[in-house]
């Protein structure tokens, strides 16, 4: 019988930091510029050029470390990592070897069966990105715009035991990093890439199996698929009595397989040694404390608090807390309108529908939390009905403005004056004798049609509850 192997997965996640300029020079980090226009002697590795540390990149790494529960290395150093490749301007990369900025820490991931688990981190270090190579038929090109962009590398322990857990880890990590705005975490732009290490071993075996590395993955689903394939492949090898070879592989998404890139024999000797052109980064305890005080809640903590504080369902809390801007928006609306559940309902159904329909995230739309709270207030006070409110919401979402003013200026207020309503009801009853007859014959739904006709006549401004009552009364009278 085929044994169920135990799987160990560790990730090395590279996250591009949202600094305005590169790690060691003043060149812009903007994405999509004409090749080789955001470059200078430093990031091109020209003779005599020297690196200067971007303090903001250090700060963002420390903030990430604190968010992820790491301890901060108060004395951190940079090292040269040597290897030759055309995308490396100096043929060494300035990285960190034995004194990274952050150590240990972890990420809690939710699991469907047992509630959740902590994936431990080994370290977080800061390094420079390489250039981008393009290969065409007959020639290759290198674009150095990306060279020198600050990259934060987050290394985990081999704590994940399935492709699902690896996906959950990446999703949770991405949420946290977006929370502190250290990276755009935009996979398409290569803001977040990862190398995956995976090994399997028979149950009962303690030491980890031989690991295989899958290089340069840039989507969560890609990581998931590659891992599923690789776990199955390794299982087949062991089932057949074979041995796993330590090697580096590449995920081929078109064919859904991993392919060998190089074996252990070709492994680089990176010859790390301390970068003599940079001073150590010394971070004082009070600086660390100041950073710690400025941190937002973790998404998981906020999720629990939202559910508890506003009495909203766990699912709603999870959706809202997954995005810091959305959660901030929700809390602002909830505070202003004083009704968390109502605020959540509006955001979960109507606002998120508009976000999806227009492809505009909450932070980019024209709707302010004040406007939404006001709109909710107008509905609660029955100044406008739900139909009007939904139409108005879309306008506020696209063009902004105050709902109270809109209602006043455009006469959108609900008609609750029974004199006016009576006249409309009478007119509708007279215009639809057949429907009235149907109702008499016992067709209950006919009343609804009549209410709808009144609403139409009122251009949606009638209070549907009052209209319903009036129609019911009138039908009863006629019946009697």
């Amino acid at each position, binding site marked *: 019988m085929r044994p169920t192997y135990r799987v160990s997965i560790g990730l090395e996640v590279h996250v591009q930091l949202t600094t305005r300029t590169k790690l060691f020079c003043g060149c812009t980090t903007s994405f999509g510029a004409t090749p080789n226009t955001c470059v200078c002697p430093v990031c091109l590795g020209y*003779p*005599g050029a020297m690196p200067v540390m971007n303090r903001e990149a250090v700060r963002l790494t420390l903030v990430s470390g604190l968010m992820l529960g790491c301890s901060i290395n108060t004395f951190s150093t940079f090292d040269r990592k040597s290897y030759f490749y055309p995308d490396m301007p100096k043929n*060494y990369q300035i990285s960190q070897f034995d004194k990274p900025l952050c150590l240990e820490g972890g990420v809690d991931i939710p699991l469907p069966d047992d509630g959740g688990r902590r994936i431990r981190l080994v370290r977080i270090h800061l390094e420079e990105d390489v250039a981008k190579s393009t290969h065409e038929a007959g020639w290759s090109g290198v674009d150095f715009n990306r060279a020198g962009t600050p990259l934060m590398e987050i290394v985990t322990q081999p704590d994940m035991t399935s492709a699902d857990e690896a996906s959950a880890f990446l999703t949770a990590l991405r949420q946290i990093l977006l929370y502190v705005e250290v990276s755009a975490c935009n996979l398409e732009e290569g803001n977040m890439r990862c190398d995956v290490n995976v090994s399997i071993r028979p149950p009962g075996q303690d030491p980890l199996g031989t690991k295989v590395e899958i290089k340069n993955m840039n989507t969560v689903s890609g990581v998931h698929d590659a891992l599923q394939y690789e776990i199955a492949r390794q299982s087949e090898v062991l089932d057949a009595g074979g041995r796993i070879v330590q090697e580096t592989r590449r995920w081929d998404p078109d064919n859904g397989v991993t392919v060998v890139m190089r074996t252990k024999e070709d492994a680089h000797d990176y010859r790390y040694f301390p970068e003599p052109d940079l001073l150590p980064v010394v971070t004082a305890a009070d600086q660390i404390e100041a950073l710690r005080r400025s941190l937002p809640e973790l998404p998981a903590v906020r999720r629990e608090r939202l559910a508890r504080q506003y009495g909203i369902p766990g699912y709603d809390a999870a959706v809202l807390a997954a995005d810091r801007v959305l959660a901030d928006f929700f809390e602002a609306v909830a505070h202003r309108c004083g009704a968390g559940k109502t605020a959540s309902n509006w955001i979960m159904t109507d606002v998120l529908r508009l976000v999806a329909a227009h492809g505009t995230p909450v932070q980019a739309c024209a709707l302010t939390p004040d406007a939404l709270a006001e709109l909710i207030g107008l509905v609660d006070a029955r100044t406008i009905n739900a139909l009007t409110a939904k139409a108005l919401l879309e306008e506020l979402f696209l063009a902004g403005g105050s709902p109270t003013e809109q209602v006043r200026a455009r006469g959108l207020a609900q008609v609750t004056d029974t004199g006016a309503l009576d006249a409309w009801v009478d007119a509708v009853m007279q215009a639809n004798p057949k429907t009235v007859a149907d109702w008499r014959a016992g067709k209950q739904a006919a009343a609804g049609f009549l209410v709808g006709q009144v609403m139409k006549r009122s251009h949606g401004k009638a209070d549907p509850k009052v209209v319903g009552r009036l129609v019911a009364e009138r039908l009863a009278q006629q019946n009697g």
Partner: protein
Amino acid sequence: MDIGSMTVRAAVDGLRARQFSSVELTRAVLDAISAGDGVIGAYTWVDAADALKQAAAADAARAAGATGLLLGVPLAIKDILNVEGQPCTCASKILTGYTSPYDATVIARLRAAGAVFAGRTNLDEFAMGSTTENSALQVTRNPAAPDRVPGGSSGGSAAAVAGGMALAALGTDTGGSIRQPASFCGCVGLKPSYGRVSRYGLVAFASSLDQIGPMTKTVEDAALLLRVMAGRDPHDATSLDRDVPDYTAALTGDLKGLRLGLPREYFVAGLDPEVARRVQEAVARCRQCGAEIVDVSLPHTEYAVATYYILASAEASTNLARFDGVRYGHRSAVPATTPIEMYLNTRAEGFGLEVKRRIILGTYVLSSGYYDAYYSHAQRVRTLIRRDFEEAFKRCDALLTPVSPDPAYRIGETADDPLKAYLIDIFTVTANLAGICGLAVPCGTTDAGLPVGVQVLAPAFAEGTLMRIGHAYERAREVRP
């Protein structure tokens, strides 16, 4: 105008007094180069038209009221410092065709002070050597004895200054490359403390050891130039934010109250007897000028050369990795199917033997399994050498030593024995390892007429002390007028 005796101070005064223009002065330098450099080979590149254009601009600026400290003063620059729009060959074939897109910080500062960059001087390829024989471009001869080397690696700068073809020059010193050629040719050479002068724009050999310094005819000129060159640079993280004093103010002419140490490890059996005699005479002069002379010890001196060659080569192996033919400089014409093949061809063709030797040595000492035995060990010894100096400087203000064990060698004399060539650096590498400053001042000649220099070493950022001692000795010395 006699460029052979013209100092920077004299040029500055003459220009200010309108005794001559920068164009006239620069033309005189260019004429001296035309007359003398065919034999000496100090310069790798001179663009007379461009130099005269800079000079004319300086004259125009002066006419318009500008008063830069070095306005209109032509200087020679070691061909390893980037000057925008000029070649920067590092005396290597691998930088063939490269034109600097930017000014090194020292160049920018000298330019702001009004200096004219008249030409570029020869060196050992990438500053690796002590004779300038490792240049891939040309031989440079010692003006005092044309069958002999000028020393190195700043041999072109030393020969240009001593040979009357420059008022002053810039050199670089990683293990003695300013002080030793100054001593061999008979001029003043200053290696500033590590962090005193920005390295930005100096093509790095060994980043933790390299410094840029002036090579001049007098200590006063070195003081003038250092004032302009020194100071914190935001482009060089290792440059320190310390005051830059007016070094000429330290030139009091006497040495009263100063204690000068003689490290016993620097006066040893291998020292050439004539060199020893000249240096002892210099010590005696300093005593006459009021200095107290004491014996001190630097016990780890014997490990300095080995330590230096491990650390310098390790850093060089990575600093020189960027020369790959991808972005600039030489690229092999041999067809290649992979980038690695292209690198191999390019680097095999572009680098000379000594550079290859040090890249291989540096790669070896950083390799997995050897790192601890070599690199880490050398770093620990470096700390011990630094402490030696800290201890010594508790007992004295500065040290007096020979610059080099021998006077200038015959061309070809050390070429076949790299180990012997490395040992030439024994008295100079220690200052770089310790990060302190050092000054070479001429102290006479051998019977055969070969220049000899005395070295003054002072604690980090005590350049003022160096200048004071060098200047007082220079005045007391009878050798030069």
